[in-house]
């Protein structure tokens, strides 16, 4: 039996790759995790089959032409028959097909992907696009987070989106279609996961230098888990427990950090960058660009431009021990 | 004449006429887009003009537009004269049209300057669109005056087919500018 592909080493390597990918979740539109996306995926498969048939008819005629290449002269033409054929194939059949597609997609499927009307869902989440991160708010609570959205499985969630700067587009392929985030307007999309999971999304409207590194993670979890998460997020930041953490907090408040970031429960009230109150509860940094590990956090603070060239966050000239303190404090903000 | 001795009957719509007609089509589309922008932003605004800007007073714009419409008479008259061979009369009518149109422009420039004072274009979309709309039309009026002056100059040397087709094209151009001017003043004065 051929063992090549299934050797333990390559399997482990594969798992690591998948695991890293799993860190961010899948972005596959054809792996739906919601009713809305399922109807879009079904629509795709139907259209694919229809297209194959249509293309088949064209291929048939092309092959027919190829087979006629031996002819010396054209046979006499029957203009009436030809016109009838052209009208049937070129007008008649397409009209029927397009009409059916129109009714199926633009009347029926559209209903399941339509934006929820305000007040029609139990839960609303506000998403505000920034260059190059996502501000996430849970109205009715003090919760403000970034780049990671938790929702309860099986619940209809109305995501209300807008932008603080340029046009962005919020898209989580496995859950629903995209909505553009446009200055001065709000657009709404329904997120209703029918199974637990981690679903990756990405900004889908070119928004500048780091458009490629503006991903978002939607975590659908059982209702109890979600409520626990939300309750934790509502609390203000954990006070520092060790001396190092206390130093870290002091640095945060006195250095440039507090000018851009908020940590609820401290004097840091900046609104230019993401809210960091529960930074350590998030799996990634910089909109899924880096894993949320002490080493990555350290390198991010030292030189954000390295991972995300052009990012708005400036590099801070800190000493090694200052960095230790800062990362220790931020690492404690679960 | 042609080598075959065929008589060539001069077309009433030669290529030069078509060239101007097509140019007008594209310029009319440009005006259509500007007018549509004005209306689009108007419909999206809670107040248009916005708070703090008084609507334009109608008297002078309407008077000036009437003046502009009136120049249609000497412009068409000039073409008819030239077609009949009366180059001198054509030149005189063209110069008359130019004089009136220049007064129109002078009046418009005074209003323009006055409006710039009371509503700077870099403060509101209303003013931005207002001045862009008016400025585009004034630029077209200047071009039209230049055309008339050119033909007045050329016709002093007499009429020929080339100049006649060009003058015909110029009258077509002025018809367009006048129609655009009517729509312009309507949009300028409509929001109250």
């Amino acid at each position: 039996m051929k063992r090549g592909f299934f050797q333990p080493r390559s399997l482990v390597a594969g798992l690591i790759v998948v695991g890293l990918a799993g860190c961010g979740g899948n972005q596959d539109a054809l792996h739906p995790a919601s009713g809305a996306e399922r109807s879009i995926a079904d629509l795709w498969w139907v259209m694919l089959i229809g297209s194959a048939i249509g293309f088949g008819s064209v291929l048939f005629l092309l092959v027919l032409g190829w087979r006629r290449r031996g002819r010396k002269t054209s046979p006499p033409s029957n203009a009436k028959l030809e016109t009838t054929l052209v009208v049937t194939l070129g007008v008649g059949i397409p009209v029927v097909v397009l009409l059916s597609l129109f009714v199926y997609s633009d009347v029926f499927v559209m209903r399941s992907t339509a934006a929820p009307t305000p007040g029609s869902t139990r839960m609303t989440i506000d998403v505000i696009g920034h260059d190059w991160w996502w501000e996430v708010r849970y109205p009715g609570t003090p919760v403000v987070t970034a780049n990671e959205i938790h929702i309860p499985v099986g619940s209809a969630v109305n995501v209300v989106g807008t932008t603080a700067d340029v046009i962005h587009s919020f898209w989580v392929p496995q859950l629903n279609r995209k909505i553009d985030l446009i200055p001065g307007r709000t657009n709404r999309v329904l997120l209703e996961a029918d199974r637990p999971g981690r679903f990756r999304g990405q900004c889908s409207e070119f928004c500048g230098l780091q458009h490629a590194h503006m991903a978002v993670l939607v975590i659908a979890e059982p209702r109890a888990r979600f409520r626990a998460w939300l309750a934790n997020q509502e609390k203000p930041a954990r006070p520092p427990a060790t001396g190092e953490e206390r130093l870290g907090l002091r640095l945060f408040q006195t250095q440039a950090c507090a000018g851009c970031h908020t940590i609820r429960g401290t004097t840091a009230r900046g609104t230019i960058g993401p809210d960091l109150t529960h930074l350590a509860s998030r799996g990634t940094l910089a909109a899924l660009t880096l894993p949320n590990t002490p080493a990555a956090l350290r390198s991010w603070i030292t030189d954000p431009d390295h991972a995300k060239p052009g990012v708005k966050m400036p590099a801070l000239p800190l000493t090694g021990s200052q960095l230790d303190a800062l990362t220790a404090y931020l690492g404690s903000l679960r | 004449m042609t080598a075959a001795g065929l008589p060539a009957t001069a077309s009433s719509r030669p290529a030069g006429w078509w060239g101007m007609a097509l140019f007008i089509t594209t310029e009319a589309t440009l005006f259509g887009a500007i007018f549509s922008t004005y209306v689009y932003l108007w419909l999206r605004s809670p107040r248009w003009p916005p708070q703090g800007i008084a609507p334009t007073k109608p008297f002078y714009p309407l008077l000036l537009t009437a003046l502009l419409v009136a120049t249609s008479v000497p412009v068409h008259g000039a073409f008819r004269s030239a077609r009949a061979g009366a180059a001198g009369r054509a030149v005189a009518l063209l110069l008359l049209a130019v004089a009136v149109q220049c007064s129109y422009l002078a009046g418009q420039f005074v209003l323009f300057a006055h409006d710039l004072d009371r509503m700077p274009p870099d403060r509101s979309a209303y003013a931005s669109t207002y001045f862009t709309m008016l400025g585009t039309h004034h630029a077209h009026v200047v071009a039209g005056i230049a055309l008339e002056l050119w033909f007045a100059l050329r016709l002093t040397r007499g009429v020929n087919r080339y100049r006649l087709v060009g003058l015909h094209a110029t009258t077509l151009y002025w018809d367009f500018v006048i129609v655009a001017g009517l729509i312009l003043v309507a949009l300028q004065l409509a929001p109250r």
Partner: protein
Amino acid sequence: MTAVDLPVGPQRVERLERIWTPRPGVLGWLTTTDHKRIGLLYLFATLMFFAAGGVEALTMRTQLAQANEKLVGPGTFDELLTMHGITMIFLFIIPITTGAFGNYLVPLMIGARDMAFPRMNALSFWLFLASGCFLYAGFALGAAPNAGWFDYVPLALKQYDPGSNIDFYALGLILNGASSTAAAINFIATIFKLRAPGMSLNRMPLFCYAVLAVAFALLLALPALTLDCIFLELQRRLGFHFFDVAGGGDPLLWQYLFWIFGHPEVYIIVLPAFGIATSIIPTFARRRMVAFPLVAMAELLVAFIGFGVFAHHMFATGLATITLVFFAAASMLVVIPSTIQVYAWLLTVATGAPRFRAPLLFIGGFVVFFVLGGLTGIMFTAIPFDQALTDTYFVVAHFHFIIFGAAVFPILGGLYYWFPKVTGRLYHERLAIVSFWVTFVGTTLTFFPMHIVGLLGMTRRVYTYEPGLGWDAYNLAETIGGFTLAAGLLLILGNLVWSRFNGEPCGPDPFHGGTLEWTVPSPPPHYNFAVIPTVRSPYPNWDRTDAGYDLERGGLVLDAGHETPSTEVRDARLEEILSMPSESPWPIVLAACVVLAFVMLLAGHVLITAVFGVLGALTLGAWHLHEPEET
């Protein structure tokens, strides 16, 4: 050409030769008003821009071949993606189809000696070349446009793009638009008024129908883009408010105006390709086009309906349901004229006696790509599908199948097809067939995987991506495809260059085509036709060779000067004889004044801009001082 071949006496031909011989040397080319020379100037310039756009594409593809590649950074990548789009659309495909193919062929196909406005024709070329240099000057100064080819606001506003990148974009496109507008006016006036006697509208070649549709579409679409760019510059430079909410404007205003231009633009791109296809197919299928009147009407309808579908580029912006549904329905409607044409083309080949020489192979490739691209286009009329897959590589696949597959393939086929007419030599057939297959495989390999990777969630305009999302292998394949495609194109270029010097000499009609260009020697004399033809069907060369019809029955030699006949719009009855200008310096001088005015405007020197404006006006005066001779 021997004395025996001449349709008229040798003295008259000699007189025609003398009257129409161009000025020699470089000066002759700089001051030319001959549509054939202008067509060739366009051809060389557009092929250079095609190469530039190709290098931009291959650089991007190399950067994307692997995840987290560091070949180019995001700033450079953004300039590359923007300039690739701008170059391919404004500096390659529109000018090559209208400026190169259109200019060279339309007068020949309608039996005229030149375009209606030869000097304005030259002006179009010099303005186009200037606009291309203007846009690329941005690259040289490190300030190339970088907000995507559709340049959405607020990203393109001063606040987010403070350098002069976007100013190059806006002013460059206004300049380019002026060139295309002048060309459009010229084509319509020429097609309306300069057709040979007897060539009523229903006897006009289908290629000319395509050019007519394109020209009208340009006239009606370009102003929206020009205005958008004017608004953008006024906002960026003078602080006007059109696109910002705070000032009472609306960012979607940019999108509406852009797509009112942008959608007709894609029909402007593809219609001439249809025209080339409908020229090649009857020749190589050896029969007249099936349902000719339906095809002609369909070409016009595509352009017309194409104006009513533009908001389908904005389905994800939150428009009202009724708006979405209206534009989806209109987008479905515009499919019909295209399906009419596809089946007409296929039936013509299938019911004829086809010879699959290189030009017809390229048309075969064109049909395959056009149908596939059209099918994915139909998918996008399903609003929820569009709202899911727009701005992903799925749409990149769709439009590249259409733009590359359906617009460029006919151009490549057309280059081979008319190469003998322009040069008097045949291309190398075997190499041409190989070049087709390499290009076909390369195109498929480059753009087909993009459908898959888009469905897997890869968004467009990203300079890099994470590994492990399932995108890696497809991206690598696309890059390999890109280089394969480049190899195919180089083979085509090599074939044409080699054949230019070593190809077998050929006569006027190597493929037995039906239209008028095949009745004149290869290459055509400067005066095109010694005797202006009198036409009685859409296939005058077949009438002459197969049915013995005498095209020269009208006897119009017109050797008293630089002359061509002007006919009535609908039925092409002779009206008058036009005296055409020959070489003139004013077009290039005027173009220089205009581009210098734009440069000064970019730099912010308003007074000097005005100076160049005045110089331009004076040039126009000098231009019109020279009047045609009266007969």
